[in-house]
Each structure stands twice: as C-alpha cells, then as structure tokens.
C-alpha cells in the first residue's frame, strides 16, 4: 500500500476516533465527577441526531445551525434529568457504592425509555440526509467534507473542554470535586450547582456528537447503543475521570480499529475491541493512563 493510502487509512481512523472521543468525554465527565455511569448516553446522541434530521427535513435548518441548538437542548435535558432523578439518588443513597449501583440501574431504565420513545415517535425506518458530502482532496487522499468537519470540531471541542477544566476557576472546581468530594465541599465549592451543570454538559456533548454524525451516517433509534459501548471502552482505556485519557483513548481506538480492519477483517475487529477492553479492565482497572 502506498504512503498516501496509509495516510488515508490513519486519517479515517482519526475521524472515527474523533467521534468516539467526543462521546467518551461526555460520559467521562459524568462518571469521573459524579460516579454516574450513564448507560443511556448513546440514546441522547441518537436524540441529537434525530432532532438535527427533523429540523433539516421539516424546517430546512442547516445542520451547522443545529450544532449549538442540539448542544443546548440536550444540555437542558441533562439538567432536567439530573434534577428529577439523580439528585434524589444522591440524597437517599447510603454510600458511594450504593449510589453507583443505583445510578447504573436508573440509566438502564433511561436507556429503555428514550430508545423506545424515539421509536414510537419516528418509527423504525432508516433515515438519512446528505450534508457536505462532497469529497475534499487533501494531498493524494480524498475525504468527505462532513467527515473532515467532524474531526475538526471533535478536536476543537475536546480541546476546549480540557482547557476549560485546566484553566478556568470552574474547571478547577470540577477537578477538585473529582479528586475529593468532601475536600472540595470544605473549601466552598458548590456541589449543588456543579453536578447538574456537568451532567448537562455531558449530555450536551452527546447530542452534539449525534448532530455531527447525522450528517454522514444513517440514523435509526438503535444507533446509540454501539456508541455507548465504545465510549465505555474508551474511558476504560483512558482511565475513569481522565479527560486527556478519553481524548487520546478515543483517537487511538479509532486508529487501531482502522488498522485492524485493514489487516484482518471487520469481524475480527469487534472481537479484538472487546478483548482489549476486557484485558485492560482486568489488568489495569483504573485505566491505562491514570497514575496510581
């Protein structure tokens, strides 16, 4: 295979990885900060995709416009869900383990609820639309415009999030909470406000990823689950709670999958992904990147 083809292969891996990273970041925010393992995460991605599609079809809105709109809408939904559901859990759970277990069960229920809601509203048919699908040539390689947009935005947003967490006061507060909830509260960081905000942010990111994905892939009510699973794999690899780990892990997984598909076949790739996942969970349960 020529050098150009290698570049193409790796680049397409990065593009897929960009989406993984975006979804994983949202999930990580929720788990790292609040120990809420939101299995329903992918369903909100699906909602973002459907909302964008619906706006495109019936209102004629450009998906680019829907980027901030889906982010805000899903973010608001996240705030509502946290207020209605998770806050009560926090108040009534005896300790963190119980909270985690209950949070998992609740997100389980959410997954059922949201997926079937989407199915009852939009039906089971495949839908899709084309946006920015014209190929763009870079060097000797050819990519679809929307895929490049996807990668670009994924990197920018991930970078922005990491910068937010590192550099702003809000970000420092979040990181402090992640390190030590009691300690953070002692120094006056407002858990009450930060938790719903971060939960909403996580869901907003998910919706944003869904909006981006809808430009180039077909959408259906069941599309979210595989992304939840991949996001789980990514945050396991990168370390629960580590933002950079999620970014690197997401991009890395995308590239590994692309290479794997090239050298073997896509069927084996799935096997490998899960195998690596299990192996990492067993060997380094805290992820490959966290220092312990």
């Amino acid at each position, binding site marked *: *295979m*020529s050098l150009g*083809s290698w570049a*193409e*292969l790796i680049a*397409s*891996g990065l593009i*897929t990885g960009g989406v993984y990273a975006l979804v994983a970041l949202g999930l990580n925010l929720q788990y790292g900060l609040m120990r809420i393992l939101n299995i329903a995460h992918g369903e909100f991605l699906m909602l973002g995709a459907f909302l964008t599609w619906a706006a495109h079809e019936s209102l004629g809105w450009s998906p680019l416009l829907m980027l901030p709109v889906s982010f805000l809408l899903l973010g608001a939904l996240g705030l509502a869900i946290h207020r209605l559901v998770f806050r009560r859990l926090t108040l009534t759970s005896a300790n963190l383990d119980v909270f985690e277990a209950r949070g998992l069960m609740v997100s389980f229920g959410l997954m059922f609820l949201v997926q079937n809601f989407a*199915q009852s509203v939009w*039906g*089971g*048919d*495949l839908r*899709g639309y*084309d946006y920015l*699908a014209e*190929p763009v040539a870079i060097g000797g390689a*050819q*990519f*679809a415009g929307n*895929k490049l947009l996807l990668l670009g935005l994924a990197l920018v947003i991930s970078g922005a999030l990491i910068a937010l967490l590192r550099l702003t006061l809000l970000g420092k507060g979040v990181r402090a909470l992640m390190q030590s909830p009691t300690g953070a509260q002692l120094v006056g960081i407002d858990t009450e406000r930060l938790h719903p905000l971060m939960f909403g942010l996580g869901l907003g990111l998910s919706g944003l990823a869904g909006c981006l994905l809808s430009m*180039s*892939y*077909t959408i*259906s009510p*069941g599309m979210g689950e*595989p992304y939840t699973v991949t996001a789980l794999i990514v945050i396991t690899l990168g370390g629960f709670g580590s933002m950079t780990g999620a970014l690197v892990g997401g991009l890395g997984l995308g590239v590994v*999958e*692309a*290479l794997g*598909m*090239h050298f073997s*076949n*896509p*069927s084996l790739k*799935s096997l490998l992904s899960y195998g690596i996942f299990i192996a990492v969970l067993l060997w380094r349960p805290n992820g490959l990147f966290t220092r312990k």
Partner: protein
Amino acid sequence: MSQKPAAGLKRRTLVQAAAASAALGFPAIASAQAAPVRIGYTMARTGPWTTGAQVSQEPNYLLWAEQQNAAGGLLVKGVRRPIELIASDDRSDIETCVRSYEKLMGSDKVDLILAPWGSNANFAVAPLANRFGYPLLGPTALSRRLIEMKLPYFFSLLQQPAPMMNALVDMLKAQGVRTMTAIYVDDLFGLENYAALKVALQGTGISLLEDKSYPLGVKDLSPVLRSMKDKQPDAFVGLTYPPDTILASRQAKEIGFNPKFFYGSVGTAFQLYRNVMAASAEGVLGMGSWNSKSSPAAKAYFDAHVKKFGAAKEPDRWASGATWAGLEILTAAVAKVGLDKKAIRDFVAAGTHETLLGKIRFAGSENIGTPGTVGQWQKGEFEVVWPKANATATLIAPKPNWV
C-alpha cells in the same frame, strides 16, 4: 309507431336496471351472509426487522386484502367471502413469532396464514406450519438450509443464493470483468451468498482479489473500501443488508472508489436507496427481479401500491414482487380448491403459476420458475438487466463515477 320502440326501450332498460340491481344486490346479500375468511400473520412493526418488513411485506398484505374485499371478498370456489386479517406486531422477536403463530393455528384455528419477515422467523414458523398443516408461502425467507429441511407445507418464493450469484457472475463475465473484490455480512445470508459466489467464479477466469466479512451493524467500512480501491478491481460485490448497502455506497462515494461494476445486495432495490443516494444511484447494480415494465400485472400492482400508500412508499423491486406473486398464487389456489389446507398445498406444489414475475413453479420448497436476476438503477428506475429474457432495459457499463 314511435311509441312501440320507446316502450320497448323503456321495458328493456327497466329489465336491465332490474337485472343490474339484482346483480349488485345479490353479492352484497351473499357476502353479508358468507362467513369471513380469517387470515393470520405477525409482522415486524418494531425492532431491527421493521425496515425490511414494512417495505417488502406488510403493505402488500394490506393492499391485497383491500383489493379482494373491494371486489366483494376472496373467491372461495365460486363464493366471495370477505377477508379478515388478524395481525400483530412480533417486535422482531422469534419467541413472539412462535407464540403468536401457535395461537393463530392452534387456538384461533384461522383459515390461512401469511408468512412473517426474514429467514430467522421463517425458520421458526415453517416447522410449526408444517405440524399444523397450514401452507406457508415465504417471500423473504432465503436460505439453502430451509429448503433442505424438506417441509412439504413450506414454499420459498425468493430466488436462492446460487441462481442469483450465477446470474451476476454470468453477466460480469460477459462484460469482460477480470478482477473482483467482495464484502459479506456475518450472517447466514452473507455466508450462503459468499459460498455461492465462490462456486460461481470457478472456471470463469475472474480472480477474487480481496474479500472481507463484517459484523451486523458495522459502523464504518471505509478502511476496507480504501484498501479495495487500491487494488483497482473491475467489479465490487457487496453481499449486504440495507443499512450496510447504503453505508458501503456512501463511503465508496466519499473515498472515490469507482469500480466499473458496483453491486449491493438487499436494499439496493428499495426506494430508500434512491432517496439517500440521489443522482449517485445511477448505474449501481443489485438484487432485483421486476419493475412496472415487467408485465401488465406488474404495472397494475405498482400503480395500486402507489395509489394506496403514496408515491413516497413504492414497493421494492425484489421482495415486494415475490410477496405479491405469493398472494397471487394463494388467491388462485383458494379460488380453485377452497380452504382445504392440504388441497391448497397440493395445488401450489404441483402447478405452474402465472404471476407478475412470470411463471413460478416449485421443486419441493424452492421456486425454480424465477431465474436469478440482476438489477440496475437507471435514471431513477431500478431496471432488470440480466438475463436478457427478463430484462426491462440494457445494462449500462461501466457505472458512471459517483456524483
């Protein structure tokens, strides 16, 4: 003098009118008294099988019942009896299918049953139908293994992998193809077609440069397609399901993979494909066996379908046709022999049936009347391009580059 003809005319018209009203009134009275024909089935209205089921199968069942009832009902040995459809959602779940059909055949004892969607469901229901003695015509059940089960009450209408792959390879060979790459889905459909493809390629001089399998629900095929693009084959064959057919087509377009022949399997014949790919659909090959030009019966069916469900819901150019053909056969059987299930079964098994797809006859469970065919999108219509006897248009070769 002028009175007589007028009087005669008046009397004649009066008699004619009386006869007409009697004729109109009679079947109405007759059908009001005739017991309905109860026909049961389950169909995927939710779950992964929904796309296929709601494009290729259920709309046809509904259209058929409506048409028959508009004519006064299903003709049962000279008496018209209204059709009563007893249907439910099987949620794409086999256990639900089995349970529902057990109820329909065992408890409710319906007069006839219609098939559910897909090979898996038919695998489960066919032995059941056989046990209860109900003939089952399956238009979306595609597997050599089903035929090999040798169930006397089961009939598969769709062409088997071997004839379909033979037709494809014959056509490609006639076009001078020397190299090919293929992808296939990790499912019985993909595997059987892949095996049939390999057999068909033997001795043709066409070399299979690369072949890769992929799991159900794959999200990205571009790495595979890129390496195939590098090898520059004359033909690309995808043994794919609708979501993957669309994915492969879109991603091939993205990366600029333009083989002379591009073939996708299930889903290419759907209107959905044309909707998603728009002008890029031009020249794409796939599994299809009819369109409205195939026969007058085909045109009538197509128009009726569009009339009932709207222009946005055309029948697909493969399985829908097979579904309708099955219903035509059933209608003919019931008209001739009534509702005796064994008699219907014998009628279907022994006869040569005229349908919109041509002549259909069965060897065991297999339809050997319809040959393997290849279809191609040409200017917004999916034409049959091979074999010449069934063709509705000539093959466009090579496929124009993706636009």
